[in-house]
């Protein structure tokens, strides 16, 4: 089995395992929704080397787009999700187009500035977005013959979309496009010198990432029945980035781990101790200092240790160069 299919199987296992081990369908749905957002963030961070604080914009716009469609039109659920996806992609194309004109710190600052800009935009246009209160009472219509009102039914719907999106992102990552992104991340100057219009590639990466993030935002709004202002806040971008980094930016499945860990641990800790974010901060420090490959790296080491323990030392271990950079 190759690496990509292994990761897909792992993602499917997560989607199957969540209902077995969790009592709340809402929380389980939240895990998969943020797994999509984190994987989309990883396409920019891990594959293209772009640290974007703009992910919250696309997430929030997706929430609003789906909410507004379902509240004010009679369009079906599928159309609402499609519009949210498009809204995310369009916003990401614009934000990407302007931000990638600068590199490094200035790029990051630009995405941060856009994040603030969209937040205040949503805050200001209260008539459209509901301002501080958010967009309330978003319905969750049935999709075809399937009613989604019950939380596990909705989970099943989210899980199917999650697996479709995950497979699509894997395809993107392993395509000639994804491989070019890796090259751009590695050495942008050389990528341009051998003929690649680097900007166009980065903008396309943004568009794909924004589309998926917009869809995740829409699913989240449907999950909680609200498109809250917090969805487009800077803090949302931060959360998505933290999930991505904790999971590890080496491959897409790592983002699923990161999102699951973040959502579940946040839920557990917040019921025990209201200052739980402090612990999360501590964890981020540990990841940044000691485990840059994130939870995925930890898992890899664990598997390796188990294999070495079982096998006789005569058997050749996996060659490090084929292990080092995973897709």
């Amino acid at each position, binding site marked *: 089995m190759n690496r990509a299919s292994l990761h897909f199987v792992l993602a499917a296992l997560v989607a199957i395992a969540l209902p077995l081990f969790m009592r709340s369908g809402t929380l389980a749905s939240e895990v998969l929704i943020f797994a999509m957002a984190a994987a989309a963030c990883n396409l920019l961070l891990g594959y293209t080397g772009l640290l974007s604080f703009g992910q919250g914009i696309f997430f929030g716009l997706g929430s609003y787009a789906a909410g507004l469609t379902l509240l004010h039109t009679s369009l079906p659920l599928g159309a609402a999700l499609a519009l949210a996806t498009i809204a995310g992609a369009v916003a990401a194309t614009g934000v990407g187009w302007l931000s990638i004109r600068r590199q490094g710190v200035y790029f990051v600052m630009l995405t941060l500035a856009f994040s603030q800009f969209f937040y205040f935009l949503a805050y200001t246009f209260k008539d459209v977005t509901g301002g501080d209160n958010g967009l309330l009472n978003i319905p969750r219509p049935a999709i075809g013959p399937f009613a989604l009102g019950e939380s596990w039914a909705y989970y099943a719907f989210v899980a199917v979309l999650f697996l479709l999106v995950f497979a699509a992102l894997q395809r993107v990552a392993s395509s*000639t496009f994804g491989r070019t992104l890796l090259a751009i991340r*590695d050495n942008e100057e*050389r990528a*341009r010198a*051998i*003929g*690649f219009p680097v900007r166009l590639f980065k903008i396309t990466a943004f568009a794909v990432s924004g589309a998926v993030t917009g869809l995740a935002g829409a699913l989240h709004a449907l999950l909680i029945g609200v498109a809250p202002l917090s969805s487009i806040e800077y803090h949302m971008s931060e959360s998505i980035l933290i999930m991505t980094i904790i999971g590890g930016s080496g491959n897409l499945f790592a983002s699923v781990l990161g999102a699951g860990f973040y959502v579940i641990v946040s839920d557990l800790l917040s019921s025990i101790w209201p200052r739980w974010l402090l612990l999360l901060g501590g964890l981020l420090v540990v990841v940044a200092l000691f485990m840059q490959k994130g939870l995925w790296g930890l898992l890899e080491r664990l598997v390796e240790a188990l294999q070495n323990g079982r096998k006789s030392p005569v058997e050749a271990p996996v060659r490090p160069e084929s292990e080092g950079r995973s897709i």
Partner: protein
Amino acid sequence: MSTQVPILAADNLGVRYGSFVALSDVTLSIRPNTIHSVIGPNGAGKTTLFHALTGRVRASSGRISLNGRDITHVSDDKRVPLGIARSFQVTSLFQNLSVRENLRLAAQGRTPLQALAPWRGVDPRGGALAVADEVMERLELAHVSERAAGELSHGQQRRLEVGMAVAAKPRLILLDEPTSGMGIDDVEAMKALIRDLGRDHTVLFIEHNMGIVMNISDTVTVMRAGRVLVEGPPALVRDDPEVRRAYLGNMITGDIA
């Protein structure tokens, strides 16, 4: 000779960085299927000339044309499909990617928009990979094809650096000090390679090793302080008193074949 359309021509090319003039009034004409070298003391503007010709630096004045077509305002990445490829003086590879992947990307760079489709597999028709394998064979890198470029020896990295330009199958290939930092054996191999490249491509190269320059060049352009000092066949350049003065004791040696 004079009636032939030059493959690359620069007319009164100038490059300024703020008030600093890096290049001024450079007029250059590269005849097709020749090996043309650029020499000159450090700071003469050789690399800046390369940057301007490949589009990495915008010309402040003057005009560049490729096969008679004005490319002065064509961006660097768009000059690759037109048939210009280069190597860098300071090795610039995809350090974390394998040798084969480096060359595959370089071959793909001629049709970069094909790589923009996120659903398309890597090199479905195998064209770019075939080119990569061919270049690896030619540069004796086949035995390290799966190794990350960053793990290669210096000599291998310099060969791959040249290979990145070759994989684009350019009509004009620009090599910026291909032998820099190489050991003697590697230098000989590089000299043979450049001569060999001259059979299928037009080669423009910057070099400090006079043995190579005088040996394999059809034409030599000598630069000093951002200007062209002398241009001509190796024998003529070697005996030019201006050139000897420019190098001030940095003896121009090397046999003329």
